[in-house]
C-alpha cells in the first residue's frame, strides 16, 4: 500500500480518463516543479482564536526544517458554506495536491469529493472535526470523552445534586450532539441533578456570556454550569449577575478560563471545575502523521482504521500551572495574564508529539528558532473507537462508548 511518488503518479495516470489528460499533466508539473510536496491547508471557518491557532501550528511546522525545503503549503479559507469547501477541495485535487490537511465544515457533505480525491491519490487528514468517509484520516479528540468526563467532574463538584445549565455549541451539529449525549449519559444517572436551562452559545465567548445572562435571569440560584467552548463567557456572566458568588463550571481550554480556575479569589467565592476539550494542537499532529506517510517513514493505515484519537487535555483547577517561557515546559499549561488574549486556546503544545512549537508558532505561524522536525514517538498513533455519524457511517459504536477515562465518580447516584 505504500505509495511512493512514482507509484502514485502511475496510479493516477491509470485512474484518470482521456478527458482529464490535461489534469494529469498539470498534476505532474505542479508536484515536480521544485520537487516539493504540494500540501493544502483547508480551513472552513476562520475567525476565532482556535481556528487561527490550529492553522498557525501547521504553518509553523511547514516552515521548520526540513519541511521548510520539502513542503509547499498553501492556505485556503473557504468560509462556512459547505459548497465552497467542496469547490475548493475539487480545485486542490485538480491542482495535483499531494495532501490536504483540513478542518472540515461538515462531517457528511464533503464525503463525495473526499472519496474522489482519495482515488486520485490525495491524502486527506482532518483535524478536530471529522468526516465519515473512510478513506480520510480523522485526527480528533471528539471520541476521547469530553462530555462524559467533564459531566462527571461537575457532578463530583456538586456532590451529586443541584440545578445546572448546559451551555452547548451549535444546534444541529454532530460534535455538539456527541458531547451533549456523553454529558447527559452521566447527568441522567443522578436524579439530584436538574438541568434547568439548556442553550446554544455557538462556541463563542460573547454569545456564551449573553446566553448565560439570559438563563441567570430565570435561575439566579443555579448551582453549576456545564459548558462547551466559550466557557469564559459563562464566568463573566456569573460575575456580572453577582460579583460575590461563583459556582462550579466545566469547560474547554481558554486561557481566561484556566486563569480563573486558578484564581484564589474566585475559588473562595465558589469557582471549581475542570478545563478539557478541543486542543488546536491536533492540526500539528495530523500534519506530522501525513508527512511521515508521504515521506515513507510511516506505513499508511488500511481504510476503515484511519480514525486516530488525540488525547483529551484534562486540567482541574489545582493543576493549573503558569508557564514562564513560551513553551509548555516543566508541566506548565497556562500563560500569565496579558501574554495572550483570554480567548486564546491554551492547548497548542504537546511536548511529546510537537516539541517543535513555541508561542510564536501558535500566535503568528512562525517556526521556533533552531527547532527541527522530530519523528513522532512509535506509540503516538492510537486508534479511535467508531462513532456513527462522527467518524463512520454504517458502523456500531462500542458498548462502553461513554466510559470514564479521566475522573472517577466520587458520589454514587
Amino acid at each position, binding site marked *: 500500500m505504500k505509495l511512493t511518488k512514482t507509484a502514485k503518479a502511475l496510479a493516477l495516470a491509470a485512474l484518470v480518463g482521456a478527458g482529464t489528460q490535461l489534469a494529469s499533466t498539470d498534476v505532474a508539473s505542479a508536484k515536480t516543479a521544485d520537487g516539493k510536496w504540494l500540501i493544502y491547508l483547508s480551513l472552513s471557518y*476562520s475567525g476565532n482564536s482556535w481556528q487561527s491557532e490550529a492553522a498557525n501550528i501547521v504553518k509553523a511546522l511547514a516552515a521548520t526544517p526540513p519541511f521548510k525545503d520539502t513542503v509547499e503549503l498553501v492556505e485556503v479559507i473557504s468560509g462556512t458554506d459547505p459548497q465552497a469547501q467542496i469547490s475548493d477541495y475539487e480545485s486542490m485535487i485538480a491542482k495535483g495536491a499531494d495532501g490536504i490537511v483540513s478542518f472540515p465544515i461538515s462531517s457528511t457533505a464533503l464525503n463525495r469529493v473526499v472519496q474522489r480525491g482519495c482515488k486520485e491519490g490525495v491524502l486527506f487528514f482532518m483535524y478536530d472535526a471529522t468526516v465519515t468517509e473512510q478513506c480520510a484520516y480523522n485526527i480528533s479528540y471528539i471520541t476521547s470523552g469530553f462530555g462524559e468526563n467533564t459531566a462527571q467532574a461537575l457532578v463530583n463538584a456538586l456532590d451529586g445534586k443541584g440545578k445546572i445549565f448546559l451551555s452547548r455549541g451549535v444546534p444541529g451539529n454532530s460534535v455538539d450532539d456527541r458531547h451533549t449525549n456523553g454529558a447527559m449519559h452521566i447527568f441522567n444517572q443522578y436524579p439530584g441533578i436538574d438541568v434547568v436551562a439548556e442553550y446554544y452559545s455557538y462556541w463563542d*465567548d*460573547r454569545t456564551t456570556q449573553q446566553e448565560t445572562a*439570559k*438563563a441567570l435571569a430565570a435561575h439566579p440560584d443555579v448551582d453549576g454550569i456545564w459548558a462547551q467552548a466559550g466557557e469564559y463567557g459563562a464566568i463573566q456572566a456569573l460575575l456580572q449577575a453577582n460579583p460575590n458568588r461563583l459556582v462550579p463550571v466545566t469547560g474547554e481550554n481558554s486561557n481566561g478560563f484556566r486563569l480563573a480556575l486558578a484564581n484564589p479569589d474566585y475559588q473562595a467565592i465558589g469557582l471549581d471545575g475542570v478545563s478539557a476539550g478541543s486542543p488546536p494542537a491536533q492540526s500539528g499532529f495530523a500534519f506530522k502523521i501525513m508527512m511521515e506517510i508521504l515521506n515513507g517513514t510511516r506505513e499508511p493505515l488500511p481504510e476503515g482504521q484511519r480514525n486516530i484519537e488525540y488525547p483529551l487535555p484534562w486540567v482541574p483547577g489545582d493543576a493549573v500551572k503558569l508557564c514562564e517561557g513560551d513553551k509548555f515546559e516543566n508541566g506548565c499549561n497556562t500563560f500569565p495574564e496579558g501574554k495572550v*488574549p*483570554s*480567548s486564546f486556546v491554551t492547548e497548542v503544545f504537546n511536548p511529546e508529539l510537537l516539541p517543535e512549537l513555541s508561542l510564536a508558532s501558535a500566535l503568528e505561524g512562525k517556526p521556533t528558532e533552531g527547532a527541527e522536525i522530530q519523528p513522532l514517538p512509535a506509540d503516538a498513533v492510537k486508534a479511535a473507537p467508531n462513532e456513527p455519524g462522527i467518524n463512520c457511517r454504517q458502523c456500531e459504536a462500542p458498548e462502553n462508548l461513554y466510559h470514564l477515562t479521566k475522573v472517577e465518580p466520587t458520589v454514587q447516584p
Partner: protein
Amino acid sequence: MQNEKTIASAVAEQEDNRATAKISGEFVTIAAIFGLTFAMILASRAISPSFGSWSQVETILYLSSFLVFCAFGQGLVILVRGLDLSIASVITLGGVLTASLMNGSNEGFLYLVPAILGACIVVGLISGIGVAYFRVPPFIMTMAVGLIVYSLCLGFTRGTPRGYPAPLLSGFMQDKFLGVPAPVYLLLAFVVFGTILQSYSVFGRKLNAVGNNPLAAYIAGLPSGVLIVSAYAMSALCAGFTGMMLAGYANGATLRMGDSYLLPSIAAVVVGGSSILGGQGNFVGTVGGALLLTALATILTALGIEQGWKTIMEGGVILFALIALREQSFAFLREVLGKRG
C-alpha cells in the same frame, strides 16, 4: 414647470394627510407592542418563579440595549427605502478596533472613541455613496461592503482579535447606579435622542420625506443623495457604537460578535411598525420590537424543551406579533379613540 410644482405640492399634501392619520395608528401599534412584551414577561412567571421580577426586566433591558443601538441605524436606512446588511461586520469592526487600539488602557480614550467611530462612519459613507450615487442596489452594496470589512478585520487580526477595551468602558458596562446597571440609563438616553432625531428634527423630517416619496422630495429640492448617504453613515456609526459597547460588555472582541444582530435588527424595525418600503416608522416602535425579541429569547432560554420546539415557538411568536400588530387589527380600536378625540 408650474404644472410639475402643483403635482409635487399635491403629492406632498396627500402624504401629509396620510401621516397625520397614521399618528394615532402608530401610537396604538406601539402601545400594543409594549403591552405584548409586558404580558409575555408576566406570563413567563409560570416557567420560573424568578421570572417577572425586576432583575429579569433589568437583564432584558441590558441585553436589548445592543439591539436597540444597531436597530436605530437600520431603521434610518429602512426609512430611506434601503437595507443595511453590513451591520454585522461593522459591529465586529467597532469591537475589534476598540479592543486592539485601546489595548486595556484608559490612555487616549477621549480621542480613540471618535477615531474608532469615525472609521465605522467611513464604511457607512462608502455604502451610502454606492447606493445613492452609483445606484447599486442597497442589498448587494451593503452585503459586499460587509464582506470586505469582515475580511479586513480577519486580516488585521490574523484571526485572533487581541487586546482589551479601556477599563473606563468595561467598568461602565459593569457599573450600577442607584441599583440599576449603568447601560440601562444609556439606553434610555439613546431612546430619547433617537426619537427626537428621527421624528422631530429637521434631519429626521427630511429623511421621512425622501423615504415617503423620493420623486416629490426631489422636486421639492431636497438633497436626496446627501440624505441617503447620511442615513447609511448613521447606521454604520450606530453599529460601530454597538460593537464598542459589546467589547466593553465582554471585555474583548470576537470576529463573530456582530452575526447575531443582523436579522434581529431588521426584525425589530419591522415588528415595531416601520415599513420596509420606507417613509414610515417610529423609533419607539423599534425599541418595542427589540424588547419583544429580547424578552422572547430570554424566556425561551429558560424553557426546558427541545431546541427544535424552541425555534418553532420563536418563529411562531414573531409571526403572531406581526399579524396581531398590523393596523387592520386596530381599525376598530382606532375608530373608538378617534371619536372620543
